[in-house]
Structure formats: C-alpha cells, structure tokens
C-alpha cells in the first residue's frame, strides 16, 4: 500500500455562522493523482489552505507527511496557487532562483516542457508561459506532494497538454498530486476524484465509479430552441451538445411527456462526467 502523503479526517470549517466545509475526508497517496472538483464556492480552496496549514480548521484532523502541517512538512510541497504567486517584476530566472533559495538550495532537473525564457520579466510573459513558470517554480525542489489549484486555467489546449504531461509524469515517478480543476476532460486524467458541493463531500472514486449507471436523456430535434423552451417550462434543465439537447437525471418518461407533439425524439445515453457532476452539484 502506498504511503499516505496528505490527509484530512472529518475536517469542518466555519466562518461565523456559515459552514464552508462539513466533515470532509480527503487522502492523497504517493504516486496518486487526485482531482478535487466542485463548483465555485464549494470549499476547494479552503480545503487546500487547511491542508497546507494556512488555515486552522474549526474541527477535524489534518496530516501532511505523517505530521500536522508544519514548516518542515511544507518544505516537501510544490504549490501552484490560482494566482500563480509569481513576482511579476522579477525575471523568470530570478523567480526560480528565489524559490530555490527558499527551499534550501535544492534544484531538480526541469522537464523540457517547463522551459521559459529566463531573462524576461514574469509579468511580461504570456499567461501560458506564466503558468509554465509557476509550475517550474513548484517543481524546482522535487517535492513529494504537489498541490495545484486550477493550474491550467486560461491556458490554450496545446500548452495544457504539455502541463498535464508533466503532472502525469511526476505522479508516475512516485509523487502525490492534488489538483483542482473545472475541466472535466482534465478531471478524467486523474486516478481518483473527490467532489465537493457546498462544503460537503458528495462523491469519491474514479471517473467511472462516479458516473456509475447514471444516464441522461438525449433529445434530437430540428428546432432545439423550441424544445429547450418546452423542457424548461416543464421544469427540466437541458444542455445543448452540438445540435441536440441532453437532460441530466435520465427521466425518459417525463421528458417524452413534456416534448409530446414537438416532433423531438428522446432516448437514453450514458452520462458523461460533466453531466454527473452537474447532477451531483445541483441536487
């Protein structure tokens, strides 16, 4: 069994009367790539801050490398925050040099995919290269655990592929990775997913585990705006995929009843991860 690098047990957090995390369990083991999913405000960033020791939970237990979050434990973490945490008025090389010094001078060989022009100010790099630099800074000291908060947000498809290649590579080499993302395509790259809704853990497992037998109703029709209006009037939410509609929940009878007389053809299909996510997060 792989070593547990980070774990939360029954972690809750409250701001005044508002509960942002409610008895959440989370575990990241060596060599494991864990995706943390949730809509905005679900509590992902709060959970990450608690895991890193930047926030003390109202209740529950947190362990990082077998101990409570501490300066020593954080020394083994590579963190890419949402805001990237780069010094925009330092060059790429100066940013990396500072990170190296802060982590005690250790310096790992950088993957080619993380190469950035060394003499350009970080603030003048395009967003894709800034993300690459933030990655390079996080990877610089060969951490045992990577915490990546929406690491590919705003990055084009090609650059995203390269970054995910690096992420997969470090997990395969034995490091643990905890990554938050809004992209279900990226989430499917993870070994295991943890879904949060309103601070509560609603699903956990592989993408296939989470989708399970969940189905959606597909609606094929010539006039999709009309079909959409009819479905919404019947209290059914639908998403447009290509030129057909997909209704989460798999209630074929209800959809057919709503669409009677419109000429639309309704059938069942296996839900995608995104559809299952919507179903879980919107109840």
């Amino acid at each position, binding site marked *: 069994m792989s070593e547990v690098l980070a*774990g939360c047990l029954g972690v809750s957090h409250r701001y005044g009367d508002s509960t942002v995390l409610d008895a959440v369990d989370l575990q990241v083991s060596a060599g494991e790539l864990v995706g943390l999913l949730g809509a905005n405000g679900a509590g992902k960033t709060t959970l990450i801050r608690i895991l890193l*020791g930047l926030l*003390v939970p109202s209740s529950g*237990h947190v*362990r990082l490398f077998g101990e*409570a979050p501490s300066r*020593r434990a*954080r020394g083994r973490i590579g963190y890419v*925050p949402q805001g990237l*945490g780069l010094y925009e008025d330092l060059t790429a090389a100066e940013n990396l040099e500072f990170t190296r010094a802060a982590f005690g001078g250790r310096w790992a060989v950088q993957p080619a995919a993380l190469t950035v022009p060394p003499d350009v100010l970080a603030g003048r790099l395009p967003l894709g290269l800034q993300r690459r630099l933030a990655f390079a800074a996080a990877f610089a000291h060969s951490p045992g655990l990577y915490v990546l908060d929406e690491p590919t947000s705003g990055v084009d498809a090609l650059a995203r592929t390269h970054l995910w290649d690096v992420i997969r590579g470090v997990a395969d080499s034995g490091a643990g990775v905890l990554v938050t993302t809004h992209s279900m395509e990226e989430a499917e790259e993870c070994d295991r997913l943890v879904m949060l809704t309103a601070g509560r853990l609603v699903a956990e497992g592989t993408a296939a585990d989470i989708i399970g037998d969940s189905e959606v109703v597909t609606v094929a029709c010539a006039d999709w705006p009309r079909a959409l209006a009819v479905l919404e009037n019947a209290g059914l939410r639908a998403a447009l995929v290509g030129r057909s509609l997909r209704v989460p929940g798999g209630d074929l009878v209800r959809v057919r009843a709503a669409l009677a007389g419109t000429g639309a053809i309704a059938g069942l299909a296996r839900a995608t991860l995104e559809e299952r996510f919507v179903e879980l997060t919107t109840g």
Partner: protein
Amino acid sequence: MWAMIVKEFRQMRRDRRTLAMMIVMPVLLLIVFGYAASFDVTSIPVRVVGVHAAEVAGRLPAPFEVTAIASAEDRSDATRALRDGVVPVVVVADADAVTVLLDGSELFTANAARAALARAGAPQVEVLFNPDLRTSAVMVPGLAGMILLFVGTVITSLGVVRERQTGTLEQLAVMPLRPRDVFLGKIAPYFLVAALDLTVVVAAGTLLFGVPFHGSLLVLALGAVLFLFVTLGTGVLISSVSQNQGQAIQLAMMTLLPQVLLSGLIFPLRSMPLGVRWIGYLLPLTYFTQISRGVMLRGAPLTTLWQPFLYLTLLGVAVVTFAMLRFRAFLAPQGARRARRRGVLALAAGSKP
C-alpha cells in the same frame, strides 16, 4: 451624468476607509491648525544661575517662567543645562554681569526669547548651538526624520501589501521559511535604503547648508535605528490591515500627517495646548527630532538623551512585536500549534489519517 454621480456615491458609501478619511482628515486638520499650528511661544521656561540668581529671577518679565534658581551654578553649568535640553533659556547672573544664554536649536522659542529680552533691554544675549538662528539648521535634522518616516512607513507598507495583492505572500507562507525570516528579510532592504537616505541628508545638510554636527555620529545612528524599527513596524502593521495599495497609502498618510504636524518638527510643542501636545508625545517622530537636533546642533550625549531613546525603544518594541504577531498570524496561523497538538493526540489515539 446622474448615473455616474449615483454610482460614485454608492462606491463611496461602501469604501468605509475612504469615507472615514474624508471625515477624520478635516477634523484632524481643524484641530491641528486651530489649536496646534502656532509659532507663538507664550511661555518660556528659564533657569537662573549665579550669585545674583535670586535677585535677577524676580525681575524677569513675561513670557519667562523661572523653573529653577541655582546660585551655586556658573556659566559652564548653564551651558550644560542648555545642551542637555533641560531648559531653552538660562540666565547667568554673575557678580560682574548678567548674560542670557539661548538654545538656538529651539528656533521659535529662541526668537521669542530674544524679542522679549530686547523689549526688556537685557544687557547681553548669546545664542548657542545655532547662533544665527537659521531655519535650515533646525529643519535638516527634522527632515532626516521625515525621510526615514516616509521610507519606513509608506514604502514598506506598499512593498508588503503588494505581496498580498499579487498572491506571493501566500506563496511565502507555503515555503519553509520562518515568519521572522520573512519579516526581517522583507524590511532589511528598506532599512538599508533608509539608512542611506539618512546619510545623504545629513551629509548634504552639513556640507551644503552648513548645518553643524556637534555630537556623536554613533548616537545619531543608534537613534535612527530605533526610529526605523518603529516606522518599519508601522509600515508592516499598515500592510497587515490593508487589502490593496490604495488602502495602505491612505492609512500611511493618516499616520504621517499627525507626525509631521504634531511632533515639534514644524510647530514647537511648547506652543501647543496641553490637550494637543500629549498626542505629540505618543508619536515616534517627536523623539527622533529631539535626538537628531540634540546630537547635531547641541552635541548632546546619549546620557542626556535617555528619555527620547527610552520612549523610542518602548514604541519600537510595542510596534514591532505587534507587527510581527500580525505577520506571523498570516504566515503561520494562530492556533496552528493547538491544531498540531490535537493532531498528535489524535494520532496517539489511533485516529486516521
């Protein structure tokens, strides 16, 4: 246009700091300029020494107020009393002559005393430490304090709050750095720049403006170090309660303005009513101005400046400790130790993870 006005008022109402500043600043300025901003010295403490001290003391007109009569003391004691800042005026009533010695480093008091003595027909008046009563001689030592205040408070608060705004402070919190290392590493460059500024101001003051430097450079440097700790600590404190650079500047200005106006740098503390003067005694620039003028103009040694040094030390310890705690609370949250302890207990009880 109406939509714009309504929008501005809505934003103004929600920006409570700006709103507070718009209300507090006029009140502050009203108090300062109404009560404190006065160059008129209405009361001048005077020490009378020499064999005829008692006799002369009785004849001194207003605005002089005799605080001590010392018949056994002579001119050298009188000079020492001025140098040590005991009083701004000493009358030396010897057997053969009466001489009034004025402390030229207290410009407005010396001017007021000289005018009053001229009206009374005083025989002999000598101005020590700033014989020509030049404004630049008094302003340059004070200006040094203002520059240290500006670099220490404004620039430091902007530097720290920028880290918060760009998210790099959070990155620092995740790095294996001790909070005190981050704190000291953050303020050290500002400290050095401010020290360089001080050197330039003092050198320019003495070389270009002929400001005397009678005292010990070491004593001035020690005072500057203490003062810088207070101002740098204030800068970090301001940044710890500011979400952006605009808020930091607002708060920094709210700490700068009272110091410039109420520290005795421009308006003499002696001219202010007691109700306003005590504010000046809470401000670090008051004490640094006393130290810089004392050292540069009067050549005052450390032993006679112990009071401003003591107050600066107390202010420094209080401000830096508070700033460190605020800084530490962000980098290593309060309760972390408690949580660690709880984690250890949970582990001991066999809990997961």
